[in-house]
């Protein structure tokens, strides 16, 4: 089989697998968040934490719960790293420096999994398993919870209640993430992924690091986290040994964001509303896959920075999916991609992580974009704009605007300062347009909570540790607060009935409009910067 045919077969298999689970899994997720019964283990958790699972929260309380929970997560993770030397399985790797510990703590709590550290030499198994892996679960569950709260805003009628964050979070972990991750950890072991508590093995006198990889690998992809247990991430044979594991990992990182569109359609009572979002996500994903694949296949040194066991299609498929989902795991060096291919991966991130985006974050981000698109569309049909039966007025537009503004603001300010800092040139492998691409990619990855690195840039100085940490935090929590505020004002509204005058949001016209809005907002915001980086590279 030629490489292209094998690649197409992989894409076909991937889409078929997603199609099979789409309906049952999407509907299952919908049931998880609408069910009134609590499982025994959940009751135990609520009792211990003194939570009344049947009381609901206003948007402000919900947002405070998210922030409080995340803050505690950051503090815990920071301390865990700072006191690593006291913990078991630390293999004498010592305590993590303050800058790196801060960056890593924020990175994992925000579902970014940007890694400024080298796992094999910096972190022991305790921090990995008790710290990072726990956050891989709960940070994904936070994204799910916020998305569900926004959907409730659309569904509910004249209420100030959005649900209970603690319940949504607990259910996300226990009913969705844990069981799926458990099954796939075993599947991954079967494909050859390593699972070991040893620090390493000696092969022909050379020490090769090992870790409990499989258990973390599954949630790394499933929760669109992306933080590698080993430095080479999914390019490492212990994390991603062959094309089967490669395909399974790509499936895992897409399965929740994709299926959530079904959950959405089910929850709003009109499945077509979900299909139309899926179609927008799917078209942009396929388009960018084509661009990256073509660019890499036609590069000057096509296989530079790629694993031979995946080849160009396997690498392009992974790169496209990981940047489209805010996962950030990599199975190839994006820095070695062509100007167009690497620029495509960067553009995926700059779309704002909604094609299909991260777990939960993808759904709420595309809904925010739909609010903006429908506002303009509503004006153009001569009615006060509405979406899913809710009017889009001053409050809704403001919340959506703040949510959309956060990412470009922190990205451009961070990258702008970095570009002129004296220490930056020294941190870069390359000058000129490729150097600027490396800077832009780093801040795009942080601000969008993607976490993949273009690499080619050393990000361990204090400026990068601190500024990227701040970018990750603001890029995560400002949109979350805005989204919950939007949910609150939507839920308070009376539902407007659908009449013959309502602009339908289930057809190709709306899909075109939404896809256009996603591309246009990203293009208009970032083209000037991209012109000096990937565009200048690609036009050479």
């Amino acid at each position, binding site marked *: 089989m030629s490489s292209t045919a094998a690649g197409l077969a992989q894409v076909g298999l991937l889409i078929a697998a997603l199609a099979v689970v789409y309906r049952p899994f999407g509907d299952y997720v919908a049931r998880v968040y609408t069910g009134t019964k609590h499982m025994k283990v959940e009751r135990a958790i609520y009792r211990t934490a003194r939570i009344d699972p049947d009381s609901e929260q206003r948007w402000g309380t919900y947002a405070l719960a998210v922030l409080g929970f995340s803050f505690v997560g950051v503090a815990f993770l920071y301390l865990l790293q700072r006191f690593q030397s006291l913990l078991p399985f630390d293999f004498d790797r010592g305590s993590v420096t303050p800058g790196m510990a801060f960056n890593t703590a924020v990175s994992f709590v925000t579902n970014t999994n940007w890694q400024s550290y080298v796992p094999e030499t910096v972190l022991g198994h305790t921090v990995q398993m008790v710290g990072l892996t726990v956050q891989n679960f709960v940070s994904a569950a936070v994204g799910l919870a916020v998305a569900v709260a926004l959907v409730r805003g659309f569904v509910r009628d004249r209420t100030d209640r959005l649900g209970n964050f603690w319940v949504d979070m607990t259910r996300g972990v226990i009913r969705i993430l844990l069981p799926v991750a458990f099954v796939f950890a075993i599947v991954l072991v079967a494909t050859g992924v390593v699972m070991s508590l040893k620090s390493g093995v000696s092969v022909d006198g050379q020490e090769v690091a090992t870790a409990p990889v499989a258990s973390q690998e599954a949630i790394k992809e499933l929760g669109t986290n992306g933080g590698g247990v080993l430095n080479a991430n999914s390019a490492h044979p212990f994390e991603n040994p062959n094309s089967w594991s490669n395909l399974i990992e790509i499936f895992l990182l897409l399965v929740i964001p994709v299926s959530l569109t079904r959950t959405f359609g089910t929850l709003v009572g009109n499945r077509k509303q979900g299909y139309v979002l899926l179609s927008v996500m799917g078209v942009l994903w396929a388009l960018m896959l084509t661009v990256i694949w073509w660019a890499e296949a036609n590069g000057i040194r096509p296989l530079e920075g790629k694993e031979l066991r995946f080849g160009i299609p396997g690498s392009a498929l992974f790169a496209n999916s990981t940047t489209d989902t805010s996962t950030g795991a990599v199975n190839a060096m994006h820095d070695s991609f062509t100007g167009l291919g690497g620029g495509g991966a960067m553009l995926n991130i700059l779309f704002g992580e909604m094609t299909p985006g991260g777990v939960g974050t993808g759904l709420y981000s595309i809904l925010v974009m739909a609010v903006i698109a429908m*506002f*303009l*569309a*509503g*004006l*153009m*049909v*001569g*009615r*006060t*704009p509405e979406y899913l*039966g809710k009017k889009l*007025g*001053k409050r*809704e*537009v403001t919340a959506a*605007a703040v949510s959309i*503004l956060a990412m*470009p*603001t922190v990205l*451009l300010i961070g*990258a*702008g*300062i970095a*570009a*002129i800092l004296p220490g*930056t040139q020294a941190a870069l492998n390359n000058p*000129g*347009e490729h*150097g*600027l691409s490396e*800077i832009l990619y780093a801040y795009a990855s942080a601000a969008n909570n993607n976490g993949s690195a273009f690499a080619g840039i050393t990000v361990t100085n204090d400026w990068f540790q601190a500024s990227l940490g701040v970018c990750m935090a603001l890029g995560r929590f400002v949109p979350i607060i805005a989204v919950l505020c939007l949910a609150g004002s939507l839920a308070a509204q*009376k*539902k*407007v*009935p659908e*009449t*013959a*005058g*309502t*602009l*339908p949001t289930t*057809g190709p*016209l709306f899909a075109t*409009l939404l896809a*256009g809005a996603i591309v*246009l*907002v990203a*293009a*208009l*915001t970032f*083209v*000037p*910067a991209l*012109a*000096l980086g990937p*565009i*200048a590279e690609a*036009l*050479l």
Partner: protein
Amino acid sequence: MTTTTDRPQRTPDEVRERHARNLGHQVAAGLFNPEQLLKSFPDALRKFDPRHQLRNPVMFVVWVGSLLVTVFAVGDPSVFTIAVAVWLWLTVLFANLAEAVAEGRGKAQADSLRKTKKDAVARRLTEGGEERVPGTELHVGDLVVVEAGEVIPGDGDVVEGIATVDESAITGESAPVIRESGGDRSAVTGGTTALSDRIVVKITTKPGESFVDRMIALVEGAQRQKTPNEIALTILLSTLTIIFLLAVVALQPFAIFSGGEQSVIVLTALLVCLIPTTIGALLSAIGIAGMDRLVQRNVLATSGKAVEAAGDIDTLLLDKTGTITWGNRQATEFIPAGGTTIDALVDAARLSSLADGTPEGRSVVELCVTRYGRAAEPTDQEKTGEFVPFTAQTRMSGIDLGGRSIRKGAASAFTLDQSTKAIVDEISAEGGTPLVVADNGTVLGVIRLSDVVKPGMRERFAELRAMGIRTVMVTGDNPLTAKAIAAEAGVDDFLAEAKPEDKMALIRKEQEGGKLVAMTGDGTNDAPALAQADVGVAMNTGTSAAKEAGNMVDLDSDPTKLIEIVEIGKQLLITRGALTTFSVANDLAKYFAILPAMFAAIYPQLDKLNIMALGSPQSAILSAVIFNALVIVVLIPLALRGVRYKPSNASALLRRNLLIYGLGGIVTPFAGIWLIDLLVGLIPGIG
């Protein structure tokens, strides 16, 4: 509840013509001529005041940018820097001009209204008699006397007497109207003139808050507050402005990193080209012009919010009488009885009605003329007949001519045989009114009078349906009659035997389901429903109570106007949305013009993006700036007129507007900037 209008009866032809005018799909343009630009120039200059600019975030950024560029241009004068500075200031000027032109048109109307306010002297009734006070010193509750030839000093209700009043100063309609105490025709407006008789008016509004005052304030835009959708749009435009500000500010460090530092002038030019100046400049003009279009149609809205709400209407309540039907029962059929021929019946019916001035009588003659080819005018011989008018006792009217005594009247006034009685009963059952025609006591046949649906109503309701608006006909008729007329007119639903409470209940029910309801009304008992409706249009002929309760007043008292109001409301929003889309779509071409101009020096490969083949970096940047400024002027007429609106469903509208203003917005600047660049290249010192 009544919809009687006291307008002098128009002939059917007049009404039809008027109606046909209203039927024009396109909400017609307010005329715009370049002269207005010149006239508005002084006002536009005054608007350079930064306090004024602050109200519009987008244009404020341009204003600050112009100042910044001017400072740098003075420090480094060249043809290019000065030209950019001048064109940036022109951008601000054009925006000011757009607003000033829109306001100027309102001012002209306000001036003519003010003339009606010429200080009227009021004859206030006091306990001992009357005193003369200036109209401005009247209080609510004062009683004033107005006699023929005098100007009514303030808004109020007639509490005594009846008079004909010339309201042309307000409505533009020259025919006088009748105002009388009691009933639904008691409201008078300050500034109108009594033509006959003597009336006593109880003043209902304070001076300065009268109808004319409000109207002046409205057309001048003095009290213009941003409407909800306008505020939301302003937030979106501000967001876009912030994004572009960030993109441009961050570009400088990236440029320095790449070894191609940019001048403040070039960066500011890029910023102004990117932010949505087109819609920013025209936004307030669009709002003012929208109100203006209403005023031109003699509709007075109390707020811009009401106009926007009109575009959102889901359900339209229309009174049957006078709105959907002509309001007068008209002859529609002749049914001979016994052995009478149709010709004999038609001739007799015509003769009986020739001198009958009532609408029914005239409709009989008209039917004879149009369907049976009889003469409309009496012959000399026929003129010799003696007209016998209708009285309550005889319940019939007719003519005595050459020994014949021809009568037509209510069925109960004649003795009828079985077959005629059957005809009469059938007509009654179908909701019509039978008129029996007899010659010397012999019954010849029956005229069917029925409610005639105005022509074109069915099409209008179909259009409304296409726009997603449901029409409900409200009538006092019995359900059977109502159903027949509803089916004929093509309304979606009807409310029969409606009492004012029923109307109110219907509005509440619709609103409970989240729908927005519009209605018209004129009577005092309509007031609660008018207040409850989201858009309540009171007829100017109505009572003060109705006018106070509604949020719009139609000076023409034409209930079908509601349909136009809905269209104007929609057009207002569409114009804003379309120009926003156009403005944002323009940016693509500007990137292609400016980015290569800025950076081809450091990355020559970026010149591949210069697909317009613009002459030089300087001419490219200047051309983009000039295009950005000129497009505002070019679009002023569109902003004032509103984009073309054709009633159709939402998807079709969106598709059309996306195509014209989205795709058009992408393509137009490529051509525009390319053309301007050709001209700019001729300027020495550039290119």
